[in-house]
C-alpha cells in the first residue's frame, strides 16, 4: 500500500475564499489511505515547495496529491519537486480545485463538496500510478524551413550559423519572397532589396544551408525530433551550379509571359530570371509557358546556351523527390493579397487605373516596370490626383476579411509620401478608418508623412469608384465633417488585406498543424507560445501565422530558430512514457492496428500479438478503448484507474 500525502493550496484567497481548506485537510487525513495532509497559502512558492519536500522525507511518502490550480499551470513544478524529493515524478497527481471548483462556483458548501470529490479522484489515481522513466529517442539535428521569404531566410541563417544543417524549401525560382518586391520599407525608408540582397547571398553561400528552389513539401511522417520529409522539386532544366545568368537563353526565347513579379505590369520570357537579384543566380525555365518540352518543340534556349559553351541546360530533366530527415520544421510560408476583383465597388479589374498597393509598390521600385516613375497603367500619364483607400476589403466581417492586416496604415503613408515626392504638384488623398501605427517610430513616421507632405487624410470609407471621361470618380464620405466627398482622381490604390499564401491548407494537413479561422497557421498559445504550432516540433515564423511587418517577422523568425535550436541542442529527446502497452492476453485480432494515427501499432507475426513502438506512440489511448479483450493498457491512465475515479465521483 502506497503512503500517500495530500497538500492543499489556498492560492491566496483564490481557492480559500470558496473552498473550506480546513475541512478538506481534516476529512481527507482521516482516510485510511492517506498518511499525511497539510495546507499552505501558496504551494508553488519557495516555502510551499519546501513544505512538500520536507513532508515527503519526514513521512516517507511514496506518492503525493497536490490540490491546487489546473495541471496546465503547475503540474511540471510539483512533479519536479516530487522528483527532487526522491519520488518518481509519476507518483505526483494534481487535483484541480481552482479552475474546476473555487473559481466557477459561488456556494462555499457545494464548492467544498466538489473539491472533496476532485481530491479523492486524484488520490484514487495516484494509488495506481506506476513509476516510469522517460523514453529517450535520438534527435535528427537538422531543420527544414518551408518558405524562402525574409522569415525563412532569417531563420535559416540563425540555425545554420549555430552549426546545424538547414534545408530551405522555396516554391518559386528564387528566394526573397514578398520583401524582394518592395521598393522601400517603413519607417526608415531603407531600400528593401538593398538590405535583403546580402542576406539572400549569404543563404546561397552558407555551407550549412541546402537551398531547394522550385520545391514543395509533399509528405511528412514521424514526430518531433525525427521527421521524415519528402520534398518534390520541379524539373531543374537549368543546372544552377553551371548557369552564369548571362541571359542569352532569354534573348532567343519566343514566348512572352506576363511577369508575376511585377503583377503582370511587365513581360518576361518563358526562360527568365525572377528578378535581378534572384538567388540562386540562375535562370528558370517556366515549363507551363515554354513552347514545348514534351515533345520538345523549340529548344532555342538550349542551342544558345550550348553555343556559348556554358551548356547548363537539360531539357530532358525530370522532377526529383528529395527524402530528408529533420528534427524540427519551421513554417515560413508568408502571405498573398486578397483578390481585389471581389471588391466590385472599387472597380478593380474593370478600371485599369485602380491598382492594388503591391502593384503600386512595384511601380515605386527603381527596378520596377516604370523604373520608379508613377504612371497610369491605362495611358502612361503621370497622375495628379491620387486616392489611397485603406482597409480595402478588410475589417469587413460581413463582406470580406474580418481582420486588420496591420501594415497598411504604414505603407499607405509611405506610398502617399513617395507619390508627393515624385509628383510634387500632385495631390494625395487617403481614406482611412483609423490609423494604427503601433510600433517603434511608426506614429512619428505617419505624422511626418502627413504634415511634411501635405497629405489629405479623410476619415471615412469609399462607397464607389467608377470611370468617367478618363477620370476615376471616387465617392466617399468624410465622417469628421459629416460631408459626402467626391474626388476626380487619376489613380486609385487599394490597400487590400493579407491572406495566407496559397497551399497553406494543404501544407497544414501534410504537417498535421492546425490553421485558425482565417487560414493562418495556429500557434500553440496566443501569448506564451506564439512561435510554436500545437504540433510538437513545428515552429512558425512570419506572415503565415498572422499579418505582420518586417521587423516582427524577423524577430519571430529568430525566435522560431532559437526554439528549433533548443530542441537540437541535445542529441536525444525525452518523450512522455505514458504510452500504450500490450498485455499478455492479446489475441492478435488486429482491431487496434488501423486506429493508430501514428502507425505505432504492428502485429508481430511470430507471437501473433500487437506490439507498440514506444518511440511512435503519443499516448492518446484510442487503441486501448477499442480492445475487445482489454489487453491494451495506457500507462498511468489504465481502465482500473478510470473506473476508480468514476467511483470516486459517483460515490
Amino acid at each position, binding site marked *: 500500500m502506497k503512503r500517500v500525502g495530500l497538500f492543499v493550496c489556498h492560492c491566496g484567497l483564490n481557492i480559500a475564499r470558496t473552498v473550506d481548506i480546513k475541512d478538506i485537510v481534516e476529512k481527507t487525513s482521516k482516510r485510511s489511505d492517506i498518511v499525511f495532509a497539510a495546507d499552505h497559502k501558496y504551494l508553488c512558492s519557495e516555502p510551499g515547495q519546501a513544505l512538500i519536500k520536507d513532508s515527503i522525507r519526514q513521512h516517507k511518502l511514496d506518492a503525493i496529491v497536490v490540490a491546487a490550480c*489546473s*495541471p*496546465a499551470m503547475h503540474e511540471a513544478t510539483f512533479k519536479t519537486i516530487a522528483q527532487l524529493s526522491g519520488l518518481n515524478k509519476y507518483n505526483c497527481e494534481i487535483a*484541480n480545485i*481552482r*479552475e*474546476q*471548483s473555487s*473559481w*466557477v*462556483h*459561488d*456556494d462555499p458548501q*457545494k*464548492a467544498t*463538496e*466538489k473539491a472533496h*470529490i*476532485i481530491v479523492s*479522484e486524484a488520490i484514487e489515481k495516484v494509488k495506481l500510478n506506476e513509476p516510469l522513466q522517460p523514453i529517450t529517442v535520438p534527435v535528427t539535428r537538422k531543420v527544414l524551413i518551408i518558405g524562402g521569404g525574409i522569415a525563412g531566410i532569417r531563420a535559416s541563417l540563425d540555425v545554420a550559423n549555430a552549426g546545424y544543417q538547414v534545408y530551405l524549401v522555396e516554391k518559386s525560382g528564387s528566394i526573397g519572397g514578398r520583401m524582394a518586391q518592395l521598393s522601400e520599407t517603413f519607417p526608415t525608408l531603407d531600400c528593401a532589396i538593398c538590405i535583403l540582397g546580402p542576406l539572400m547571398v549569404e543563404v546561397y553561400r552558407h555551407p550549412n544551408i541546402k537551398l531547394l528552389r522550385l520545391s514543395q513539401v509533399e509528405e511528412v511522417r514521424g514526430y518531433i525530433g525525427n521527421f521524415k520529409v519528402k520534398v518534390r522539386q520541379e524539373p531543374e532544366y537549368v543546372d544552377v551550379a553551371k548557369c552564369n545568368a548571362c541571359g542569352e537563353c532569354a534573348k532567343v526565347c519566343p514566348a512572352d509571359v506576363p511577369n508575376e513579379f511585377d503583377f503582370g505590369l511587365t513581360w518576361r520570357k518563358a526562360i527568365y530570371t525572377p528578378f535581378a537579384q534572384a538567388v540562386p543566380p540562375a535562370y528558370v525555365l517556366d515549363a507551363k509557358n515554354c513552347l514545348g518540352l514534351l515533345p520538345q518543340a523549340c529548344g532555342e534556349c538550349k542551342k544558345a546556351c550550348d553555343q556559348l559553351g556554358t551548356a547548363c541546360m537539360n531539357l530532358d530533366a525530370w522532377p526529383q523527390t528529395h527524402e530528408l530527415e529533420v528534427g524540427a520544421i519551421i513554417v515560413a510560408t508568408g502571405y498573398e493579397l486578397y483578390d481585389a476583383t471581389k471588391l466590385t465597388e472599387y472597380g478593380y479589374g474593370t478600371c485599369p487605373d485602380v491598382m492594388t498597393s503591391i502593384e503600386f509598390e512595384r511601380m515605386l521600385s527603381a527596378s520596377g516596370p516604370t523604373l520608379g516613375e508613377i504612371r497610369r497603367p491605362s495611358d502612361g500619364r503621370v497622375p495628379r490626383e491620387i486616392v489611397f483607400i485603406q482597409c480595402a476589403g478588410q475589417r469587413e466581417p460581413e463582406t470580406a476579411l474580418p481582420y486588420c492586416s496591420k501594415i497598411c496604415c504604414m505603407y499607405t503613408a509611405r506610398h502617399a509620401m513617395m507619390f508627393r515626392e515624385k509628383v510634387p504638384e500632385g495631390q494625395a488623398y487617403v481614406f482611412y478608418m483609423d490609423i494604427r501605427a503601433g510600433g517603434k517610430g511608426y506614429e512619428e513616421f505617419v505624422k511626418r508623412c502627413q504634415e511634411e507632405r501635405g497629405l489629405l487624410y479623410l476619415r471615412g470609407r469609399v462607397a464607389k469608384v467608377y470611370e468617367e471621361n478618363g477620370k476615376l470618380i471616387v465617392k466617399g464620405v468624410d465622417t469628421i465633417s459629416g460631408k459626402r466627398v467626391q474626388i476626380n482622381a487619376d489613380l486609385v490604390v487599394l490597400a487590400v488585406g493579407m491572406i495566407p499564401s496559397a497551399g497553406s491548407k494543404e501544407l497544414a494537413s501534410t504537417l*498535421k498543424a*492546425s490553421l485558425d479561422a482565417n487560414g493562418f497557421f495556429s500557434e500553440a498559445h496566443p501569448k506564451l507560445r506564439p512561435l510554436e504550432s*500545437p504540433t510538437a516540433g513545428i515552429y512558425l515564423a512570419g506572415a503565415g501565422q498572422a499579418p505582420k511587418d518586417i521587423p516582427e517577422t524577423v524577430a519571430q523568425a529568430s525566435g522560431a530558430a532559437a526554439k528549433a535550436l533548443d530542441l537540437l541542442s541535445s542529441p536525444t529527446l525525452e518523450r512522455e512514457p*505514458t504510452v500504450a502497452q500490450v498485455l499478455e492476453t492479446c489475441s492478435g485480432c488486429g482491431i487496434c492496428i488501423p*486506429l493508430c*494515427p501514428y502507425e505505432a501499432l504492428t502485429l508481430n507475426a511470430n507471437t501473433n500479438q500487437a506490439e507498440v513502438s514506444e518511440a511512435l506512440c*503519443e*499516448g*492518446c*489511448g*484510442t487503441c*486501448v*478503448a*477499442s480492445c475487445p479483450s482489454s489487453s491494451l493498457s*495506457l500507462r498511468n*491512465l489504465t*481502465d482500473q484507474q*478510470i*473506473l476508480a*475515479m*468514476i*467511483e470516486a*465521483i*459517483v*460515490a
Partner: protein
Amino acid sequence: MEKTFEPKIVGFLCKWCSYAGADLAGTSRMKYPPNLNAMRVNCSGRIDPSFVLRALASGADGVLIAGCHPGDCHYTNGNVKTLRRFRLLQRMLDQFGIERERVRLEWISASEGERYARVVRGMTEEIRSLGPLNWKTTMEVAA
C-alpha cells in the same frame, strides 16, 4: 421544503481542448452548477463506452464526453473515433431504456470556456428535468 434533485454527472474531458476550455471558464470566472465532476483524459478517443455504462450503473445520472472539434484533434482524429463509438453507444442506451439526453458528446475547444459553461449548465438542467436515473437500484432489484 422539498429538496430539488441534484444530478450527478461524470465528465470526460480531453486534456488538449475541452479541459483547457474548462480552465478558461475558470480563469474567466464563469459560473456553472457544481453537478458535473470532470476527469482529465488524454483524448476523447480514450473513452471506452463501457466507462459510460459503468458510470451510469454506479449512480451517475448523466455523462459528458468532450473533445476537440473535428479536425482539431491533437492526435489527428481520435475524436472522430469517439463519434463513431458514441453513435453505437446511443443505440445501446435506447435498448437499455436510458434517455439519450443523459449522455452527451460535445466538441469544446480550448478557447470555448463560455461554451463549456453553457454545456454544463444546459446538461445539468436537462438531466434535472429528466429526474434521477436510479439505474443502480433498478439493477439491484432486477438482480
